[in-house]
């Protein structure tokens, strides 16, 4: 069935089977392969995208449920000027090794900092508990998100 929604600021119309998840729709039909699929059943957080501003697991949402929504993927968070402050902070703090989980951490942290630029380390750990990283051990990821708060604070919730 045909569905229409907005992805990273552009209206798209795609023909999908009802069983297609939003994650597969983004990757296979829209070729937005920055959204990674780790577990495909809602445990790892690698597929996190923003739907109408909220961080959600794209593998636990059908593409047909996104009809009429505004979806932002990790690709939609970068800009033409190179790395965003959050991405720079991940690099500075060595918050990634293999990078597979990173898109999910970036989208989740972006949603958090956009709403709560004053959050503390406990809140960051609580929110990131829904994302699994098998390389870094999380400490550097939490440090990167803590350090990126300043960019969101100084710009009213926008990086």
């Amino acid at each position, binding site marked *: *069935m045909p569905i229409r929604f907005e992805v990273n600021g552009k209206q798209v119309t795609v023909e999908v*089977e*009802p*069983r297609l*998840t939003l994650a*597969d729709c983004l990757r296979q039909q829209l070729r937005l392969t920055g959204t990674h699929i780790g577990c*495909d*059943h*809602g445990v790892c*957080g690698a597929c*996190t995208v923003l739907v109408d501003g*909220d*961080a*959600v*697991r794209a*593998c*636990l*949402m*059908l593409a*047909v*449920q996104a009809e009429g929504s505004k979806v932002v993927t990790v690709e939609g968070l970068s800009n033409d000027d190179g790395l965003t402050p959050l991405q720079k902070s991940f690099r500075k703090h060595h918050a990634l090794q293999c990078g597979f989980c990173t898109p999910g951490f970036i989208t*989740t942290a972006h*949603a*958090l900092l956009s709403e709560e630029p004053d959050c503390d380390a406990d809140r960051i750990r*609580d*929110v*990131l*508990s*829904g994302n699994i990283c098998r390389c870094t051990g999380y400490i550097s990821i939490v440090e990167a998100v803590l350090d990126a708060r300043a960019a969101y604070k100084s710009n009213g919730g926008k990086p």
Partner: protein
Amino acid sequence: MKLPQFEYACPTTLHDAVALLAARAGDAKALAGGQSLMPMMAFRIAQPALLVDLRKLPGLREIKVSGDGVRLGAMVRWRDIEDDARLASAHPLLKAAIAHVAHYQIRNRGTVGGSLAHADPAAELPGIALTCEAEIAVMGKGGARTIKATDFFLGALTTALEADEIITELRLPPWPQERAKSRRWGFQEFARRRGDFAMAGVAAFYDLDNSNKAMNTHIGVIGIGDRPHRLPAVEAMLNGRAIDDASIERVAAATSAAVEPQDDIHASAAYRRALVGTLVERALTSAAA
């Protein structure tokens, strides 16, 4: 695994949604936030031929707070409960329990109705519904009815919901406001990571009478056995007594003796038995503080 094939419908009225479910008698499932149903389908534990998406149904997203208690629409999300400042006084036990439900991204999609219909034995909301003697309002082809939480949860992932019925609302009885200090409560659960399913959890509340003795004690457990349940023998031990360290210790031991936990990959029965006693102790200690 990728999801099995199914048909999809997105009705705009409750009447149409019920009719769609009724027409496929047992072979269709209502889809709310999908945070339990989608993994169930990925694992082939559920293989409905038709999903009836409830997202366009009006009137199911409201949290109502009144003298009649707290009413949660079936499509209310965990996030909505978390964000509703009224609930801190209107139902502090609910608010505390919901803080333990799942992780950030799931909290943005998971719903009240979905959790009740899924009926995981370790889920917080069924435990709160049962402990607080809530009612679950449903709509089916025969019309609307309410089901007491005590009659609703029949076993692991099994409820009294008929195949054509959709949950519309959870109705929690009023939490005392005028004598708020006389209502004491605690919620405790233990999971390896906050947000994961609890190995065990305890919801407890009681009211203090004029001589500071407990009455109207309610203690419910989750993650123990195949459904949430209360511990009437343990509740009776507290009614009419002052809640102090000695009575809490006795009740914690009685709880461990009263429950019949299961072994599974997450914890042995012996571990759960000890754990639930500790959780009762912590819940009552925080209630009395």
